């Protein structure tokens, strides 16, 4: 009988399931209360712990110094972690204005190819 009780308690502990014996406070945190009033709640279904692991893995894969990964993950709120874990590839990464030069080149190239201008001498 005692053994059964011990096994039951161990199972609870392993599963980290709340039991009536270990009542824990359930205060609503401020960020959670903010999310409840904004559209951020759409993301609230994403498990924060999983999101943290996911972002950590993505940072490492994107070349962040391993010594920096934990500090960078720790600086993000749960809301931001959920956003990054689900949308990182789609988020804009602000870099620099050099792409504009690419556009100018493209326009010049089109003009060259259709014969309006003649500045790239090697292109027939």
């Amino acid at each position, binding site marked *: 009988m005692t053994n059964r009780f011990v096994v039951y308690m161990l199972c609870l502990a392993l599963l980290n399931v709340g039991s*009536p014996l270990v*009542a824990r*406070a*359930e*205060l*609503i*945190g*401020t*960020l*959670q*209360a*903010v*999310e*409840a*009033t*904004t559209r*951020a*709640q759409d993301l*609230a279904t994403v498990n924060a712990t999983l999101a943290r692991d996911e972002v950590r893995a993505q*940072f490492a*894969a*994107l*070349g*962040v*110094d391993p010594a*920096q990964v934990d*500090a*960078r993950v*720790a*600086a*993000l*709120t*749960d*809301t*931001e972690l959920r*956003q*990054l874990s689900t949308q*990182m590839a789609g*988020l*804009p*990464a*602000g*870099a*620099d*204005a*050099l*792409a*504009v030069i*690419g*556009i100018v080149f*493209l*326009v010049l190239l*089109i*003009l060259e190819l*259709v*014969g*309006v201008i003649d500045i790239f001498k090697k292109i027939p």
Partner: protein
Amino acid sequence: MRARRLACAAVLAALLGGTGCATRAPVLEPLAAAGLPGSVDLDGTPFHPQERYQCGPAALATVLAASGAAVTPEALVPEVYLPGRQGSLQPELMASTRTHGRVPYVLPPTTDALFATVADGVPVLLLQKLGAGPFPGWHYAVLVGYDAGQEIVLLRSGTTRRKAMSERHFLATWDRGGRWAMIALRPGDLPPVPDFASYMTAAAGLEAVGRAEDARLAYEAAAREWPGRALPELALANLAYARGDLAGAERGFNAAARRDPADAAARNNRAEVLRQMGCATAARREVERARELATGGPLEATVAATARQVAAMPPGDAPGCPVD
């Protein structure tokens, strides 16, 4: 030949005109007419010329320095630069702002808010989408002024200390970039154009990463600015609870519930604190109100969990329980 020229003109028009910069009405002129200064130049704003791909660290260092947090772009690179993306992401710029003890406040996505903020003396970090079509160029710059008469804006951008850009072109790039703009505030300072949800999100972010003292200053400023809202009082009471001050937390949640009697979170938290204080009668009454208010909302499950714990309390009240 003539047909070819026409085709080229069409291609050019598609590339340039398709970005929506051709048909925009002036924005600065009416704003100036409505009371903003005709021209602003925050010339004292520091300038950090960017290294390759690193406009994120450079622009962030600029707004942090303007808020009095001296930090170099080089020091920010390990915090915000993502080598695999050759750039920086918005959430990390906000995270880094918090790391340096500032409140990362995201502006309402309106031109009014943008220009009113810079007119109030606060440089604005913003995201632009340059380039076009298959060649987008995402770029962070800092808005430091404008001139309504000349229809230009002034930016700290890339390697240019004072970049003048036509108002129409600038607004088109900001619009295409998703109208994202943020400022760095000292904790306790309110933004020139205060938006409640945006400010509280920024303040709660400080608490979430362990900067409770900075968060407290921000919550107190919010409590003064928005006296009709429950959330700032709730936030301060949560801090009191985290310090272990049950009585102070109970009073704070009560104050929050008085400011907004329909706030389920304040009543839920008060019920839980009353339970921990051994006040069964008041806890039961409060959790019942919380349950009515939370029904069908995002907090329903949390309130139900509190209600179960309150229901399991032994009856009777400890000495000193509030009577209300």
